[in-house]
């Protein structure tokens, strides 16, 4: 830090969870082992976790910007026409919530070294996620058949944008599920367990986001 003298070598070490950390007193460093604050093997998993966390923040801001516009227009437009939430959306929601449950069970199986059990539950999670997206597409088709297009009203437009944007982001989660389920992790820098954990953060986030969006659309009638 500026102002520290070379002789005194006053170090202001802030306990940091990331890289860095005070070198050993002997001045040895570089690739010499030992003395780290955390197991080096975990550094790859943690960077993915941090990346997912930051990505979730960015996605949240994206949806909150649209939600803010929804709320402003909902309250200021006297001719607002809401879209009745199709009954299928509730079924889709149940499927998504169940997929979060099966994902957690799958992770527990993996932690207990039950590879077969993990694969079955992970596959079930993936299928539930695909079922959710398919259900959303069916719901859109039902609305279009009933004459509810995005151009009909701002309420309908927001409905389609919210559900479509969420579905697009969820498909990213499905890709992650497939990657974790199908990839061979033998030579990888992260373990399957760590990859599953990071994927679970994103999947549960998508789950919670959908519940919020559904509440917004339902209560916004």
């Amino acid at each position, binding site marked *: *830090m*500026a*102002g*520290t*003298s*070379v002789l005194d*070598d006053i*170090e*202001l*070490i*802030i306990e*940091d969870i*990331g*890289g*860095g*950390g*005070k*070198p050993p007193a002997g*001045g*040895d*460093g*570089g*690739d010499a*082992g030992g003395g*780290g604050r955390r*197991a*080096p*093997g975990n*550094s*790859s998993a*943690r*960077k993915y976790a*941090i*990346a997912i966390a*930051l*990505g979730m*923040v*960015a*996605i949240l*801001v*994206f949806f909150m*910007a*649209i939600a803010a*516009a929804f709320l*402003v*227009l909902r309250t*200021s*437009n*006297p*001719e607002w026409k809401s879209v009745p939430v199709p009954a299928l959306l509730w079924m889709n929601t149940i499927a998504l919530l169940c997929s979060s449950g099966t994902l957690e069970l799958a992770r527990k199986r993996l932690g207990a070294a039950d590879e077969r059990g993990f694969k079955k539950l992970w596959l079930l999670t993936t299928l539930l996620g695909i079922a959710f997206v398919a259900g959303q597409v069916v719901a859109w088709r039902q609305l279009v058949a009933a004459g509810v*297009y*995005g*151009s009909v*009203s*701002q309420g309908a*437009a927001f409905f*389609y*944008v919210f559900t479509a*944007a969420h579905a697009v982001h969820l498909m990213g989660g499905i890709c992650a599920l497939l990657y974790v389920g199908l990839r061979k992790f033998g030579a990888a*820098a992260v373990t399957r367990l760590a990859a599953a954990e990071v994927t679970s953060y994103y999947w549960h986030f998508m789950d919670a986001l959908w519940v919020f969006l559904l509440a917004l659309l339902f209560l916004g009638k």
Partner: protein
Amino acid sequence: MKELNNRSEDEAVGRARGAFGGIFSAEHKTVGLRFLWLALLSVVIGMTLSLFMRVQLSHQAGGSLTVPSTPDRYAAITLLHGSLMVFFVLTAAPQCGFGYFLIPLQIGAREMAFPRLSGVSFWMTAAALAGITASVFFTPAAGATIWLLGVVCFSIGMVLAALNLSVTVMEQRARGMTMPRLPITVWAWFLTAILSLLIFSVLSASSVLLLSDRLAGTHFFGVAPQFSVSATSIWQRWFWFFAQAEVYVAMLPCFGIVTHLLSIYSRRPVWSERLAVLALCAVGLFGFCIWGEHMFASGLNPYTPLVFAMLASSLGAPSVLLLICWFGTLWGGAIRLTTAMLFALGFVSLFLSGGLSGIFLARSEFAGSSTADALVTGHFHLVMGVAATFAILAGLFFWFPKMFGRRLNETLGKIHFWLTFAGVYVLFMTMHWLGLLDRASSVSAAAAIHGLRTFLTFVAVATISAQILFFVNFFWSLRRGEPCHAKNPWRATTLEWSVASPPPSENFRGGVPVVFRGAYELGVPLAGEDFVPQHVGPEELAKLR
């Protein structure tokens, strides 16, 4: 465990090289240089467009158009000029160009956290440049849609880059490189990455809705017979929430670069380094709070302009802190006026003088009644456009030896600096005056305005012509410049100067260094030198004493 750690880093370096060789290389130095090349191309196109705009403006008062143009075409050229300069020069170059090249070197990492993301973010930015540039050749309706698609592409690219840069700073630092020991440049890139994550998400959201209006027939923003409420003010709010914070995305890396250079070239530590970092954080935070200062004439709630005016004026506080840090760093230093230092000092001058007009523009009653566009144009060009460009040029002159193993010509550089410095002051200070005159309604004012517009065109042509010196210097030095085999020609303290010039592909041959001290141990007499590099350990230090 050591093998796991090394294997993970080897995999990162290997992935960066890429299975497809050069064109899809995701190696951080290659990606950084590509961003700088992209910025160079954009600035050439942007300056050419500004010449067209100036010729148009200086002739329109005469009532005839000497340059073939229509109002739509002029608006498209203005949009393209602004998009290229703000997105691809001021955002991509200081943050992604320098950031990608230097962050791993300065923190002691062999590669970025996610090398593939480096490549993806670059190609998305390149695609955005192609789309945004092509949009001007279409009809206004189609062009606007293509422009929006380019903006969405750019936003996603910047979010990915921000993710990559921030995780790299958090997770890839060498042993001993704690957050307080980070160079202030890395702090600035890190804070800018966090800011970018947030604001480009908002821009993406607003662009997606506008695209939905244009392509899917929705009516989020348009006024249709069945809607009595227009959402124009929502677009304004979104856009300015993004755009005002975007100013600081452009400026924060420049603050970091200039602070760093002032320290190196005055051979003094950064004055109150922690205060400088806090000031950077405050500037970033304030940037989120003052979008309303662009909406004083939009019919906001009557009390709102008061709030935004006070918040905008408060931005002066962290700005003054930064100025104090800079002057405190320079005070009593053994200043060496290299071209890089001249550009850094030029940045300070432009930031100060351009920022002073910002204090007046922050007042809602002043902005609404006393000024026309030219004063605002002069203000943001001085304080953001040209100042940031000076910081980029300072960084280029400083790190050119590290990047290319050669030096830029100092004589040509200094001549280029003085011509540009004089030119931009004459150009944009005159524009401030023009902005005040535009509000006057007298006949003599009209004659003066016409004369000033013509004068500005000549000055713009002269200043842009002076940039030829830089291009000649740059391209000639790339091939024939004085070789710089020394690792550390500027006697700097940070880690990038501990490796060869240009650096090897894995950055640190023979092992990643360990960091023992902060980044600004300057003015410390040691073994005939006046600095102690970050990586010199206690044993080596004892031998040198």
